[in-house]
């Protein structure tokens, strides 16, 4: 199988101004720190970032928002990173808040070739504004549309050199979902093993989805 392992210094070439980037992680847990650092150092700006939350000012995806590389955030929660709220109030960064279950399902649709889905979440709230309401068997649902990105930044615990991934504990969260929903999927793993060392049944994201792999901190 093709070896996807690359040096961190090779990663910068994937990033451009104005790109849409998805990242795994929940309050920073399961966000690939080395890949985020590489994106930060690439200097790419006017980014749209899509992920559960903007973590804290100095963890996860946080620094990218704090230092002004982000034009738009699509997330379910920004409360723990004050700079996101501050930049939103100052009109420097646009924020689209999406209920967490709706956000992950929109990404899943984007990766699964679906044109959208119907959810009861958000009916009768500000989330419903501008959205089509469809009634099924007497219950109202919102039509929610898919999300895709140019690049996904995935964090795994173990990867083989071909890019088969296994996650650990609560750091799985959005990672396997975003791995389906971007044109280029970059993964970081704390431990890299030879192909065959991960049993087929233990692979959570198949290598076929991964374009580049780097070794991160264990």
């Amino acid at each position, binding site marked *: 199988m093709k070896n996807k392992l690359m040096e961190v210094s090779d990663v910068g070439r994937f990033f451009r101004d104005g790109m849409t980037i998805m990242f795994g992680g*929940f*309050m*920073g*847990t*399961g966000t690939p720190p080395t890949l985020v650092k590489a994106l930060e150092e690439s200097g790419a700006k006017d980014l749209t970032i899509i992920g*559960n*939350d903007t*973590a804290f000012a100095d963890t996860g995806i946080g620094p990218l928002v704090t230092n002004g590389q982000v034009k738009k955030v699509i*997330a*379910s*929660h*920004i*409360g*723990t990173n004050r700079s996101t*709220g501050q930049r*939103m109030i100052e009109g420097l960064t646009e924020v689209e*808040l999406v*209920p*967490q*279950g*709706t956000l*992950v*399902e929109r*990404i*899943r649709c984007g990766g699964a070739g679906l044109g959208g889905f119907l*959810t*009861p*979440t*958000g*009916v*009768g*709230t*500000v*989330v419903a504004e501008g959205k089509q309401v469809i009634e099924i068997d007497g219950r109202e649902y919102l039509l929610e549309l898919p999300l895709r990105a140019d690049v996904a930044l995935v964090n795994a*615990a173990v990867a083989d050199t071909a890019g088969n991934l296994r*996650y*650990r*504990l*609560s*750091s*799985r*969260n*959005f*990672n*396997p*979902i975003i791995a389906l929903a971007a044109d280029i999927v970059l993964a970081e793993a704390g431990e890299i093993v030879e192909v065959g060392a991960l049993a087929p049944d233990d692979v959570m994201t198949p290598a076929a989805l991964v374009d580049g792999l780097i070794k991160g901190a264990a």
Partner: protein
Amino acid sequence: MSPKELIARRVARLLNDGDVVNLGIGLPTMVANFLPEGVDITLQSENGFLGIGPITEQDVDLVNAGGQPCGVVTGAAMFDSAFSFALIRGGHVDACVLGGLQVCQNGNLANWMVPGKMVPGMGGAMDLVVGSKKVVVAMEHCAKDGSSKVLKECTLPLTAVNCVSVLVTELALFEFVNGAMVLKELAPGVDLATVQERTEADFQVAFDLKTMEFDSAELKEAAQ
């Protein structure tokens, strides 16, 4: 017993043995400390697992839905966020307990933003209150300025409409039945007039209105 502890203790007695439960951050988290003997529940964490447990050893890959280090019980199960919210929206969570900023008489809940002041995002709250079989709001009856949080109509942006099953405050327990808000219990030492005075919402009084029951061992423990 502090108001918050009273609320948490009463909510704990609403949960049944074997329930899958999601507890929100803050007061709702306290509920796990007060489960009656013989009630064994499984706690769901919306960031991707069933079986939150006490923290034994800090692990960078294991946090609760507040992003804080936590532990897991023996027999816990991990999954991704899409599966986690399939559990939530799909009705596989028996009860969720969460805090509230306002609850109104038709069971609407507002608990995620105060325009111009607090806009943290809804996180998983909107999905939880729509999908959980039982939605328990645990909150103090009045705001710091003394105004009632139990209203005819919520003035803050809603989390969901007609979603609340039970509201527990330090004064009373209300159930929402077929669109009506019904006062079922009074907290120990609280009379109906006090609840009426501190509640803006119109509510019915259950014909079998009673006082919240806490067993004597529990009250003794709380007094210490």
